[in-house]
């Protein structure tokens, strides 16, 4: 088999993984490569007591380069939950699937605030000192996504945001 053919086979296999259908639930596509676990974390899908099967595909080939995909079977995520993803994966698209059909497809939207999902990057911030408070950030710019701590006003963007997912 030539190298070209091998690559085509590989791409086909990748595509199969990507489109493995779920009967009902949520497929989050076009997650920036390497961010899938952060997406699970931000959606609280790792520790939460849920029945759903959650599957993750990482490093998947696509026309836009490599990407990650997350599939949550039997569970339709709410918009406000989904919007949290935009903080770390602004290019992600969300597909709601019912009976093997995509019934709703949309890009994630930025929330106005991020509460309790990130910690402030300023170690000296009062929100990092074992006080009974929930971290809170205001979204002050959209491109690139920039957050400002409600307590110390320190700003975070890009990698700083994904590095500080709680």
């Amino acid at each position, binding site marked *: 088999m030539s190298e070209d053919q091998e690559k085509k086979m590989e791409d086909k296999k990748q595509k199969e993984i990507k489109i493995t259908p779920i009967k009902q639930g949520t497929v989050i596509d076009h997650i920036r490569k390497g961010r899938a676990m952060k997406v699970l974390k931000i959606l609280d899908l790792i520790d939460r007591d849920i029945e759903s099967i959650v599957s993750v595909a990482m490093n998947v080939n696509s026309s836009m380069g490599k990407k990650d995909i997350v599939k949550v079977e039997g569970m339709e995520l709410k918009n406000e939950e989904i919007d949290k993803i935009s903080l770390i994966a602004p290019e992600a698209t969300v597909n709601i699937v019912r009976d093997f059909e995509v019934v709703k497809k949309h890009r994630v939207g930025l929330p106005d605030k991020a509460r309790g999902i990130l910690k402030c990057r*300023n170690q*000296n*911030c*009062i*929100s990092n*000192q*074992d*006080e*009974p*408070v929930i971290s809170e950030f205001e979204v002050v710019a959209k491109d690139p996504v920039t957050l400002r*701590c*409600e*307590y*110390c*006003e*320190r*700003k975070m963007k890009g990698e700083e945001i994904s590095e500080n997912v709680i």
Partner: protein
Amino acid sequence: MKDVFEKDHIVRIKDFTRDELTTVFDLAEEMIPIAEGKKKNNDLEGKLLANLFFEPSTRTRLSFEGAMKRMAGRCIGFAEPGTSSAKKGETLADTIRVAAGYADIIVLRHPHEGAAQLAANFSEVPIINAGDGAGRHPTQTLLDLFTIKREMDSISGNHIGIAGDLKYGRTVHSLTNALSMYDTKLTFISPPSLRMPEEIIDELKDKGIHHTEVEEIDEVLEELDILYMTRIQRERFPSEEDYENVARSYHLENDMLRDRDVNEDLTIMHPLPRVDEINADVDMTPHAKYFQQAANGVPVRMALLKLLMEA
């Protein structure tokens, strides 16, 4: 007067509208004879202020205490972290809730940034931020603005030079933010390694505020209406030699003022304490206003206490 002042707490200078600043300054002006002991006042009789100072700051604490007592109020509190319950591991949130049960207003100084916002979230009584970490110190900014207003008759229309450590100095960041609400011309004077953070410069650009950056006081001294000096800290420099080189050009002496054709009304300010940025021989010149500036802390804080407690 109260209708333009709707604050429950004083956390950051950015929360003030220009009308609210005017309200504070007008009331502070009325407070001056009382602050100077020339007129009696008992507006805050029966009121109790709690000074919670988790790090020492003699001047700020004394001026709040003075402000309260000039209006017949009383104070409780602590001035050293070692004497507080934080030593025993109590959270700030709990300390605040307890103190709010004892006093009518809380003045907080704390080593962590954002402490005043947290306190405001948990307190039933007004919180005044008297400095939180490297963060904010709004009452210092208010007294700086009040001093400019008193000395120059108005804040707008002045060319203000801010000199020293502009990178790390919280005083100059807050002051710049506040001045951007007025029509002023700003010149930032600092060594290249201690320039005003880009974030603050960007905000000025967005607001269309006229500003320039230079490296030597000499370059602009003759053009200034106000020169706001701050300390340059030795520890910001890699070597003693680097520090000495810079410190020399940020050392103001009377000779410098005499040799130059400075504005007759040039006002020199400094948040104090100074180390060697301003030579003692400048103190006797009519330009030196830094002690007056410190004294202005009392009427400004009186105004804030009145506005918050009589609301």
